[in-house]
């Protein structure tokens, strides 16, 4: 049996020491190409899914009977790294009825979660009462911190109808910190971060309403 001389040639070249960096470079190139292609293929779809999820969340935060405007177009782009922990420009959704602000969905980011940022949307009525809270994004521990998600436990439900008056502002902590809100067994850091973020959203709402009240009274 004669071996193909070309194949033996190839083998010899592959075994040369100088081929090692070439192989590595080739592999890096290939894997980067793979990542780029899959990003290209999926980026649009992922963005669309994110938007659809956001719309579905908005419906829960801003009940249909409380607004008669187009929520998606009536947004204010805000960037409040200090007040709301934003890392980039976020959309503040405002529901109005006959031109009067009735309810808004405030984006807030908790930067002090257990692992990475927790992005929330907090729905607040004009009088400062919470309609609902939605978790948009998080990377908390599966089985512990992720119980903040509304489909995994009803922990998030306890915020409905609360405000800065009920409970009082100083009570906006988890019970472990002598506050009003339940924590999650074995996960304290995540609920603490979420409660803090929701409070920030409420404080922002209060300031926002004060600065906008002349307009709404007209």
């Amino acid at each position, binding site marked *: 049996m004669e071996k193909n001389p070309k194949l033996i040639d190839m083998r010899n070249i592959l075994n040369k020491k100088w081929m*090692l960096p070439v192989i590595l470079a080739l592999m890096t190139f290939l894997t980067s190409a793979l990542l780029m292609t899959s990003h290209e293929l*999926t980026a649009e779809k992922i963005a669309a899914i994110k938007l659809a999820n956001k719309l579905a969340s908005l419906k829960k935060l801003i009940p249909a009977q409380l607004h008669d405007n187009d929520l998606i177009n009536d947004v204010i782009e805000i960037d409040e790294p200090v007040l709301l922990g934003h890392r980039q420009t976020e959309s503040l959704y405002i529901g109005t009825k006959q031109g009067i602000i009735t309810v808004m969905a405030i984006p807030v980011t908790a930067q002090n979660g257990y692992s990475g940022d927790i992005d929330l949307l907090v729905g607040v009525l004009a009088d400062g009462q919470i309609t609902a809270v939605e978790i948009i994004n998080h990377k908390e521990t599966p089985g*512990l911190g992720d119980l903040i998600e509304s489909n995994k436990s009803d922990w998030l439900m306890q915020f409905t109808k609360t405000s800065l008056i009920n409970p009082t502002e100083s009570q906006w902590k988890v019970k472990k910190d002598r506050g009003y809100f339940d924590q999650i*067994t074995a996960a304290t850091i995540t609920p603490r971060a979420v409660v803090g973020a929701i409070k920030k959203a409420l404080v922002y709402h209060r300031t926002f309403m004060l600065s906008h009240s002349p307009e709404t009274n007209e």
Partner: protein
Amino acid sequence: MNEFIKTRLIDNNAALVQMLGLCPLLAVSNTAINALGMGIATISVVVITNFLVSLIRPITKKEIRIPLFVLLIASVVTTLEMMMNAYFHQLYLVLGIFIPLIVTNCLIMARAEAYASKNAWWLSIKDGFFVGLGFALVMFIIGIMREVIGQGTLFSQAHLLFGDWGSHIEMTLIPNYDGFLIAILPPGAFFALAILVALKNKRDNKKNQAS
């Protein structure tokens, strides 16, 4: 049982004997369903990476094999995560959180190094599947132990993995149970694993005495 399969499932089980991939094993086994989800995700990743590592055997040289595997495994896992997010979004919502954790599983690296880099692709796929299955089984058993002892429930949140059908198998075994926190906390995982390792060693000892 076939020797090939038996070695991988029991005799030389990745979790019980080789002690590989303990990070995800201990972290995500607090309920049976979490463990099952992580198990399924792990099996699919090991099968795919084993297959690819086996394919690049001609250019895998001893000196650079580790960086090659790292590059390949990391980019494949990331691609898998993006694809799942875009095309199987329901599944992604359930398993997605486990996928980045899989990269920390040295089981994958170990199979690439010890088996896939030396064997043909069909054998590597088979190896990946059964080693992954052995890992998933141990994880699932630990998940059941911790959930029953810790919360008194079994298969809670199964609807996330199986939809409507899943909500029928969600059970409360012990009603009005106060919970046994240590089983859910990380030490519980070590205790459960230790019990399984002890049982496995007992079986091995018996076998050795008999022969």
